[in-house]
């Protein structure tokens, strides 16, 4: 059959963001040896342009919403929401990277190229409606992330992080692939919509098959979102990876993985929801609890935020446990809010940490409010949002998630989850205490003034956090509309 039967112009427009990102990534790779290293603001600027182009590309793709490539992709509101989210995450990662890379003497095109590939992979993930496409997207995203985690190749911790991430990540992907294989064996299709039809249909396959497949996929995806009991890698990797990469790993791939989590479990496996709900319930609760309690004991800020990101994965799993459109919309909103606040917090860390990332401890934030009041104020916004104080995006995220959970009668999960967020307040407050209530440290005194890129990297997410906190309906309406289209 000629290939033109599968591909038409509409399909290409629906695939526009991925095309832009891959082409730009390859271009950067090619440019890398040709350009003088010292003038390398070029790479950052090019990748910013590519990302902005991809942002418009996803808007254009949404204008042509529908299935593409014979149903392998489904460009709907849900996909567009997450595409735009991961692209914005990309932009907010590139902005602080300028200064960060210059300080580590590590400005290369490949950093930006890998970032763009990873985002392209995530765009494929979130728009895929087919398990094989999801797997391909997952692999593109993951492999680029493994390399990014070890990008500072002279740094021991970064090497450890990359190796750990790679080994455990490969295992997890393997589990996921087993699940895909089982589904294909049981239903004869890898398309999510058809698989759902086969599962609910007249001669449906044995529920054991489907259950095992769901469990295997849950293992793979649970690893990627660092949910209990697959969270072990997160603290080491997040601590070891270069800070802008950590910011990216904790938001972009996580949001994209949650997107496919929601898509798979709310479409194909939705009919067996009664089976998986208790398991996700436990994972949600323990992710929140273990993440929050472990974070209480940390003195390294990156590690602290790593544990907090485990806890936040738990909150999103609460939304999944709710098994409703409201829950899906809440998870989408939460991931957006989390992306803004977390990436902003990491941008401040990358600003403070200095050359060789020496300053990552809590004490290094001491007195920041006296030396750089603006940086401290912005970090305060992010931390208050992570705590969940009203008028920030983090608050509304939690609010919507627990509202969805209560609507689904998950009273205990709600109460325990909310109490968890009170525990979490303690370790975020420790950073605030350091910044405002102690005398300036060496790191705070020596911190450079904010560059333009860093200012943008801090102010944009702060604005995002506040807008999500004051006018949440702008995003929530869109999320609500898209979540019901999912099935």
């Amino acid at each position, binding site marked *: 059959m000629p290939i033109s039967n599968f591909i038409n112009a509409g399909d290409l427009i629906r695939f526009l963001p991925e095309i832009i990102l891959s082409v730009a990534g390859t271009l950067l790779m090619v440019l890398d040896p040709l350009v003088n290293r010292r003038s390398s603001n070029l790479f950052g600027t090019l990748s910013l342009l590519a990302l902005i182009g991809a942002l418009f590309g996803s808007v254009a793709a949404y204008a042509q919403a529908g299935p593409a490539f014979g149903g392998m992709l489904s460009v709907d509101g849900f996909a567009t929401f997450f595409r735009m989210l991961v692209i914005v995450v990309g932009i907010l990662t590139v902005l602080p990277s300028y200064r960060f890379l210059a300080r580590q003497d590590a400005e290369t095109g490949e950093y930006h190229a890998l970032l763009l590939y990873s985002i392209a992979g995530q765009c494929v993930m979130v728009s895929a409606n087919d398990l094989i496409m999801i797997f391909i997207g997952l692999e593109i995203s993951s492999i680029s992330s493994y390399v990014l985690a070890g990008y500072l190749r002279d740094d021991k911790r970064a090497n450890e992080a990359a190796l750990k991430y790679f080994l455990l990540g490969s295992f997890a992907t393997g589990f996921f692939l087993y699940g895909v294989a089982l589904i294909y064996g049981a239903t004869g299709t890898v398309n999510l919509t058809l698989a759902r039809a086969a599962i609910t249909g007249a001669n449906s396959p044995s529920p054991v098959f489907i259950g095992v497949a769901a469990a295997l996929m849950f293992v793979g995806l649970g690893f990627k979102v660092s949910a209990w009991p697959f969270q072990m890698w997160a603290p080491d990797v997040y601590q070891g990876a270069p800070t802008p990469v950590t910011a990216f790993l904790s938001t972009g791939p996580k949001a994209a993985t949650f997107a496919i989590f929601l898509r798979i479990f709310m479409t194909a496996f939705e009919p067996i929801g009664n089976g998986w709900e208790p398991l996700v319930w436990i994972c949600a609760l323990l992710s929140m609890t273990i993440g929050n309690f472990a974070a209480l004991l940390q003195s390294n800020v990156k590690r602290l935020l790593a544990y907090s990101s485990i806890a936040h994965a738990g909150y999103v799993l609460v939304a999944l446990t709710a098994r409703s459109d409201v829950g899906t919309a809440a998870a989408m909103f939460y991931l957006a809010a989390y992306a803004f606040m977390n990436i902003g917090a990491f941008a401040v860390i990358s600003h403070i940490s200095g050359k060789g990332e020496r300053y990552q401890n809590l004490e290094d934030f001491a007195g920041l*409010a*006296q030396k750089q*009041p603006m940086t401290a104020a912005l970090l305060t916004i992010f931390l*208050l949002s992570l*705590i969940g*104080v*009203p*008028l920030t995006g983090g*608050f509304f995220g939690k*609010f919507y998630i*627990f*509202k969805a959970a*209560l*609507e689904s009668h998950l*009273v205990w999960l*709600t*109460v325990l989850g*909310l*109490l968890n*967020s*009170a525990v979490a*307040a*303690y370790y975020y*407050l420790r950073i*605030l*205490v350091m910044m*405002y*209530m102690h005398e300036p440290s060496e790191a705070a005194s020596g911190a450079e003034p904010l560059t333009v890129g860093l200012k943008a990297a801090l102010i944009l997410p702060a604005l995002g956090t506040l807008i999500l906190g004051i*006018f*949440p*309906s702008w995003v*929530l*309406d869109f999320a*609500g509309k898209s979540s019901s289209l999912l099935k």
Partner: protein
Amino acid sequence: MNILTLILAIPLVGFLVALLLPRSSPQSSRVWALIISLATLVVALSLPLHFDYSQVEQFKIDVPWIASPDIHFYLSADGVGMWLLVLTTFLTPICVLISWRSIHSRVKEFFAFLLLLEFGLTGVFVAQDLFLFYVFWEISLVPMYFLVGVWGHERRIYAAVKFFLFTMAGSVLMLAAIIYLYNRAGTFSYTAILNMLSSGRLTFEPTEQMLLFLAFFIAFAIKVPLFPVHTWLPDAHVEAPTAGSIMLASVMLKMGTYGILHFCLPFFPAASHRCAPWIGVLAIIGILYGALVSLVQPNMKKLVAYSSVSHLGLVVLGIFSFSQLGLDGAVYQMLNHGISTGALFLLVGLMYERRHSLEIADYGGVATPAPWLSTAFLITALASIGLPLLNGFVGEFLVLQGTAISNYSWTIFAAIGTILSACYMLWLYQRVFYGETREQVRSHMPDLNIREWIAVVPLIIMMVWMGIYSQSFLPPVTKTTARVLDQAQVNVPFRVSAPKAVPSRVAAQSPLPSPQSPGFSPAPVQEVARAH
């Protein structure tokens, strides 16, 4: 423009502008904060002048804020909320004045946070959308956390974090209950939920109601603070800078008692009645325990802090007496405590500025070098004890009378607490102001200067005014508490022996006594009323 919106907008805009003022000129921040807080006060004073007795909700504004879920920017004031709002705006300029010289470092941020605090606190008392209420409730937490943590004394960090975590732990439970209420009622509107409850369109199972009541009540009890969740209070009060202590004691604690009065009683009447005996016991423990600890305190600020535990116990006791007099007295006592404990913290703060010590043992004979300071302290202490003709007496008398109607044994314990308050206050006064004047005291204790006079005199005027002519303040309160009491008896499946002070008006307003609840009969209630 709606007047309540204006009252909220002025400090908020003031806060945002204060952030932009130059760090190099602290004077500009001080003057700005004073202008803003006075402007807010002037606007707020027009509320009592325009209070309309024919309406339940005053100065109402209700505009949609967030479409889904249906959250409104819904403000209105009832008699209690209005007075607490006026109290907040009255105390803020005093706090600005008192911090004029005593705050040296990071002056700009201090006054900015003070204005943000005013914004949060005023919002709490007029928000009639449950969600909006929660927003203000949490917002007021943040500036107070910084006020204590940055500008406090030695153990400030411990105190600030403890304060934040205690409140946070309580309020997340309240958030869960608010969401649950929304899922049941489909609205966050206070009035709409009340109407649904009283018309029977929304009913709770007994267990459900009890759990919801507890979720709200624990959040409020932590704020009040009720024994045994009071432990954050002595730390926070002692470590806070003077302005922080004043706002904490005078206004923030009232958020708890206001919440109980405004939400717990009308929303969950049966659970409130069922828990009342237990809460009464806790309140009495608080009254006696707070008073006894005050008696043995070597630290002046801690003494005043523990006296707050004692006084607020009396307020809770008044509320859970379910009598018109008790509720009126509780609200009046909330206002009194705001004025007189605020003044006590202020005067203790002034002495600390001079002598740099809070230990009672470091003072003695202050009356000789600083006679006016001593006089002001004496009046305040007497007001706090409840001397007739000063404000404390009116509130205490009403509460005692109210509890006497519903539960006479409570009255006995509450009265013991009142006696103890005289003991610790007068003994404190004797040790600090009389006796031999030490050299350090003589040389470090100048009398009040003009700025301090301006801060102290309004408080003393209020003590005398509220003590002599309570009629200026009580009618709006009575109107609101009568309504609360009325709602607190709707759908209560067992008899409540509480008299109604204004039975005719209440009967006209109330769509019930509910005939469907067999245990409820209005007849004995009237008998009790006649008996008194």
